[in-house]
């Protein structure tokens, strides 16, 4: 909600600067941004009472001398005779109607009303709607204006019994669904309660006689409607958060006053219907409790003074909550009021000591398992559980993001297959992944199982001993024997027939309940350590890689280290990584063969062969400067 600094400060005696007001608003918990001396406020949903100039001033009154005494119409008002029936009093327990007739529609506004539109960049609509909008901004109470000449029969507030067509005053046609609360006249919906009125009953620039509805609607009846019907409505925003049920007389008298400052009033009358008194919350004064909750030590008089400034009645040993603060009901609520006034950052810390007992960490087996897997080259992944139907036992999402994510997965393997293909498409030839997650299914109730799933394909590793070995069931069975020698694991070879890939490497998978791993695993001593610090991520490239291998023949063994140092330390912007994929010593010929693989990839562009050759040739020429080594074929 936008509130102009000038509209606030004109009621504050000290005339604080905009930055001072801004600091105080932040202290009170009212987040905002400032642009052109306008506060763009973002209130927490419990503070509907702040959605107006007066509401915000009520909160700021704890810091400043605030004058909230706007002029109101004080004369006795005639009782309005209106044919009205409230068939949904539980939704609207409190409603007033004001009928006003003016002699002439004003062609200009007083400064304060004009400035409201000017300062906030709002468009004027028609006189009565403009005054109504201004009053909502000033007081926080939305009112709705009907052109009295367009309401010819009984007005009924009710919940509709079937879907009905409705055209809003903003020319939008919507279908209201059964149970929506509306005002009807002559069997036609003329107002979607608390959200928007109808085109057929709305005021125009010619309207001289108006019926103004001022109501309290239960937030539950309003919430979600503007979103559902895609209607931008300041009124619904306020009603959803709760308005002051006791403000009608004051707001309508203020409205009459504003109208009277712009036109001669020929006739005015008012009527109120109230089916239920608003509950009054009274909390016994207990400053010790407040001090204990916050962890401070303020005196009772200081406590009561703060509350009094915030509009609470503090007489008679009770704190009586004002009708506009429906969010306050307990001492904890009052403690928050005090903490806001003191300033959260000004509350000194008190040392906390939580009793430390020896507590069982039942995740130890899982933790060991994870470290065992990463020690053997597996990467942990986390996948979304939302999938297309994968089993008759899959749980259906009632409101999925889309039709491809309508169910909760019943296995982890399918996600890992997707992960594998994703990485194969990125030219990875050694892929080992695992995921540990709860898996849910529906079969006479919802069932949960915690599972480990692994998938692996391609080379066992990229070092010179593992480079030419392919991952297969035998390799994985031997691996899992190390941690669970007494368990037989059912590794699967997944068919690639239905997968979108031309790669032929075997895909081996396993999906198993975590329960299958016994405490024997706890004796495993992990090799990998958690990173000592949080590494800074280096953005990755999705552009294609190119691979270049160079195999050297070395007769002078003393040069091996020099060659390694040169090549493994070779720097180029387009080299992603370098490793030794082959190493063989031919004792007979007193010769060592060593192969290096270079991965080329750019972050900016797809590399062409000449860019790669340039670096590749430099590597060759630099390495051949070492005496005693050669590259067969060159």
């Amino acid at each position, binding site marked *: 909600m936008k509130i102009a600094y000038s509209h606030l400060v004109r009621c504050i005696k000290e005339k604080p600067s905009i930055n001072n007001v801004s600091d105080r608003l932040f202290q*009170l*918990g009212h987040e905002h941004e400032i642009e052109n001396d306008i506060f763009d406020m973002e209130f927490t949903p419990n503070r509907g009472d702040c959605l107006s100039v007066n509401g915000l001033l009520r909160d700021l009154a704890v810091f400043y001398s605030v004058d909230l005494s706007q002029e109101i119409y004080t004369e006795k008002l005639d009782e309005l005779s209106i044919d009205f029936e409230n068939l949904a009093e539980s939704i609207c327990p409190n409603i007033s109607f004001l009928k006003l007739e003016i002699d002439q529609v004003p062609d200009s506004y007083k400064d304060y009303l004009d400035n409201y539109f000017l300062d906030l960049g709002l468009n004027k609509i028609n006189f009565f709607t403009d005054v109504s909008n201004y009053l909502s901004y000033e007081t926080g109470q939305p009112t709705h204006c009907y052109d009295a000449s367009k309401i010819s029969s009984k007005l009924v507030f009710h919940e509709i019994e079937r879907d009905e067509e409705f055209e809003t005053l903003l020319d939008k046609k919507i279908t209201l669904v059964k149970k929506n609360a509306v005002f009807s006249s002559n069997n036609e919906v003329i107002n979607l309660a608390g959200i928007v009125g109808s085109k057929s009953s709305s005021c125009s620039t010619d309207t001289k006689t108006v019926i103004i509805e001022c109501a309290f609607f239960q937030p539950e009846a309003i919430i979600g409607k503007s979103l559902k019907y895609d209607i931008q409505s300041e009124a619904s925003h306020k009603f959803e958060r709760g308005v002051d049920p006791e403000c009608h007389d004051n707001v309508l008298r203020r409205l009459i006053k504003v109208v009277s400052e712009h036109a001669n009033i020929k006739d005015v009358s008012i009527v109120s219907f109230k089916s239920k008194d608003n509950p009054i919350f009274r909390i016994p004064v207990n400053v010790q409790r407040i001090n204990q909750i916050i962890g401070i030590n303020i005196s009772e008089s200081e406590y009561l003074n703060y509350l009094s400034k915030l509009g609470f009645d503090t007489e008679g040993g009770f704190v009586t909550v004002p009708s506009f603060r429906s969010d306050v009901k307990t001492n904890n*609520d009052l403690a928050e009021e005090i903490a806001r006034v003191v300033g959260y950052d000004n509350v000194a810390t008190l040392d906390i000591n939580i009793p*430390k007992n020896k*507590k069982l960490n039942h995740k130890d087996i899982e933790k060991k398992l994870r470290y065992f897997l990463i020690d053997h080259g597996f990467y942990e992944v*986390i996948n979304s559980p939302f999938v297309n139907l994968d089993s008759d036992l899959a749980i*259906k999402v009632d*409101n999925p993001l889309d039709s491809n994510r309508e169910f909760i997965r019943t296995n982890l393997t399918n996600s890992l297959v997707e992960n594998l293909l994703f990485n194969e498409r990125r030219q990875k030839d050694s892929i080992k992944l695992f995921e540990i*997650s709860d898996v849910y299914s529906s079969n006479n109730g919802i069932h949960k199982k915690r599972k480990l799933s692994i998938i692996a394909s391609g080379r066992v590793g990229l070092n010179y001993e593992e480079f030419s070995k392919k991952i297969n069931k035998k390799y994985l069975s031997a691996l899992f024997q190390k941690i669970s020698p007494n368990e037989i694991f059912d590794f699967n070879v997944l068919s690639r027939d239905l997968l979108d890939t031309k790669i032929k490497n075997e895909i081996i998978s396993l999906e198993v309940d975590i329960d299958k791993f016994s405490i024997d695993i706890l004796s495993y001593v992990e090799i990998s350590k958690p990173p000592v610090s949080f*590494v800074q991520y280096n953005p990755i490239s999705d552009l294609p890689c190119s691979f270049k291998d160079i195999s050297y023949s070395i007769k002078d063994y003393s040069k091996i280290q020099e060659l390694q140092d040169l090549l493994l330390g070779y720097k180029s912007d387009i080299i992603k990584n370098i490793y030794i994929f082959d190493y063989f010593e031919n004792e007979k010929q007193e010769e060592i063969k060593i192969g290096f693989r270079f991965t080329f990839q750019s972050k900016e562009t797809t590399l062409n062969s000449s860019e790669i050759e340039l670096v590749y040739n430099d590597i060759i020429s630099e390495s051949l400067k070492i005496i005693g080594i050669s590259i067969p074929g060159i």
Partner: protein
Amino acid sequence: MSVHKDILPPELIKDRGSLHPINHMKDSIMNLLISFGFEIVDGPEIETEEFNFDMLNIKKSHPARQMHDTFYVENKSNLLRTHTSPVQIRGMLEKKPPLAFISGGKVYRKDDDATHLPMFHQVEGIYVDENVSFAQLKDLIYKIIYSLFGGDVKLRFRPSYFPFTEPSAEVDILSKEGKWLEILGCGLVNPIVLENCNIDSNKYSGLAFGLGIERIAMLKHGVTDIREFYKSNLDFLSQFK
């Protein structure tokens, strides 16, 4: 020429994998909290409205309960938990104070854009004892933030609103660029929630806090797009060793 026996083959570099950075961050935070005296409790990701909302004082009218914010399953009989708080409820119903629980894991909200995902991770903690105060909550939060971001980081507490805590606060840290970044939400457990769990709110009070793991991981690792965490790209994952 050297004698070949003197020559050692090149170092055999075994490929190691890595923990997922989100799980690693979650574990780091939970280990820190365990060192403070918290105990891990677990709960299901598929929850009831009672545990996810009602017991936490989140009223029927609360926007979070709308179909556009929460994933409901099996004809609205259950839902995917929108926060880890229901685990605290389960913990409080099982044990009597003093108690100090943490829970961490996946939570779900109906968001899907560049900065929000329908699945993300939280760690939450609750401590209930006699005379637990907001000033003690602040002490705990300072300890957590200093452990995560270093002792020289500046932080501020802002009044906020959560139905399950009162008073409620959000905590920001000041970035190197001079911007305040929201890090966690916290507060004193609303007495209504304690009473819902059969804990005498006149005798006991509690503090609670919750952190979004992705947000902290993004800050710590310098990841700017949250979706990177869940592409399972080995080029990404291999950086977090």
